[in-house]
């Protein structure tokens, strides 16, 4: 079930209140994490809301959002494919995996596919280097020792799931 925007805002409000973050400037990053988890990205109205709630000027909020790679003000794909481009993966051919994902899905890095299902991101070391090259889909699905031939299989798995 897809939640409505009001419901998501309500959840964010609860999170802020439960943790006593209201008016707390140092909670900004924690709240942005939660907001991105809920909304999938950080739309302008959400940032305005957070700015208001935590009493942090909007310009400061944008400063933080643009500084950290983790935060995005643009929608990402429903499934985010993160290809590790760290050194240990690089020597195991990670760049070829990355290219293959882009080719198969016909997208540019960090942009969602036209159906919104996928986006492909080159990321830094995921801390699973012994299984290099490593691909992580969404939050927790790790694929290790990936070869270019496995790329279509990985994609179709998520296509089936929808």
């Amino acid at each position, binding site marked *: 079930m897809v939640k409505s925007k009001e419901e998501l805002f309500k959840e964010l409000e609860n999170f802020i209140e439960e943790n006593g973050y209201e008016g707390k400037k140092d909670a900004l990053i*924690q709240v942005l994490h939660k907001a991105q988890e809920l909304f999938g990205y950080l739309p302008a109205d959400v940032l305005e809301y957070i700015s208001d709630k935590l009493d942090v000027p909007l310009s400061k909020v944008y400063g933080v959002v643009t500084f950290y790679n983790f935060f995005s003000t643009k929608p990402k794909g429903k499934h985010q494919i993160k290809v590790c481009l760290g050194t240990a993966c690089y*020597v195991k051919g990670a760049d070829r995996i990355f290219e293959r994902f882009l080719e198969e899905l016909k997208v540019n890095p960090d942009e969602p596919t036209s159906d919104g299902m996928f986006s492909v991101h080159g990321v*830094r*070391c995921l801390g699973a280097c012994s299984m290099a090259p490593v691909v992580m889909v969404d939050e927790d699905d790790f694929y290790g020792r990936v070869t270019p031939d496995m790329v279509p299989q990985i994609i179709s798995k998520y296509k089936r799931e929808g």
Partner: protein
Amino acid sequence: QIKGTVEVEKVAEETRIVLKNVGEIDPTRIEEYIARDGYFALAKALQMEPGEVIEEIKRSGLRGRGGAGFPTGLKWEFTYKASADQKYVLCNADEGEPGTFKDRLIMEGDPHSLIEGMIIAGYAVGATKGYIYIRGEYHSSIEILKKAIEQAYEYGFLGENILGSGFNFDLKIRLGAGAYVAGEETALIESIEGKPARPRLKPPYPPTFGLFGKPTVVNNVETFVNVPRIIMNGAEWFKKFGTDSSPGTKVFSLVGNVVRKGIVEVPMGVTVRDLIFKFGGGVEGGRKLKVVQTGGSAGTFIGPDKLDVPLDFDSYAKYGVSLGSGVILVADETHCAVDLALAVMRFFEHESCGKCTPCREGTRMIVNILERISRGEGKKEDLDTLREIARNAGETSFCGLGQSIPVPLLSIVDNFEEEFRAHIGANKCPVG
């Protein structure tokens, strides 16, 4: 698809002090930790004077496992002596160094050892609040630590009047948001304060001026985990392991073209050769070793001639081989030196926070030149230019990220000068 992100197969000859519980206990059950003498060191420390705890850590010779090797006891003493209404203990679990995943293994395999080390640190320096700053990408570490912290509160190891000692300590988790530079301690502090992770000017160092301007101890995960071991067994016991200047063990990660990839814990002073051939089972596919990068992105590239250097915190100064965060990245003969240099320098370019020009512009220029060389369009003077930009960035950059640019770049260019030259003027890479 693989569930669980770290493999913990133990190699027979390892010396497991830091990792003694990893793979042996269920990390989600505090009872199993307690059954293996868990929180005993805390009880012992609470019966000592804070000054005595610091003295013990000083005598053990423990040095910071985050990479720089600063003496831990000395750092604690600075914070202990600073007077303030509030002090903090921070754990640097931002583990951003590509190829490094030791802290993740510790947090997911033995979270309570970290928590216990932090509480002892808090008691020793007089801090009542602590934060663990974890990489946002480490979902399972975050979950396991959250649970462990809850259990530690339930059992009275955290919170008020810990074990009836009158000492209070609160511990919270803070999530990083994907910036390598946030692992630099002052940038990490800015981030916990809710700001962009841009490094501060040092000095003043965090032990006297840290989080919210208060005296703050910042240590790496592995550093903290050594603490309960030392308190339990004593400084003399600890000094039996490792080298004179760097006692204890080190947790290494073996990655790249090595047969047995993964984590090993061995005494300081181990050689790169033993790490690759004895513990790592040699180079994949029986191929020839070309180069090893030790110490992480900011570490040194070494050729086969330096494999017998004993690794500790002084091996960089003595032999030009860095220990850093303990990564051993093996590259076999199929790799091109220019490509390797480019991969590392692209990382620096991407992770430069942009605060200062020598690092921001320097990395951009270096990447441009390397790309040109890689395309076979290099110019004769390019290698000298690379060296000059790197040295300049090293000398004038604001923080450790920019300052370390020359370490990997000069070491790879010096080791493979001929290969770099062969690219220049040729439009084909000699390696392929």
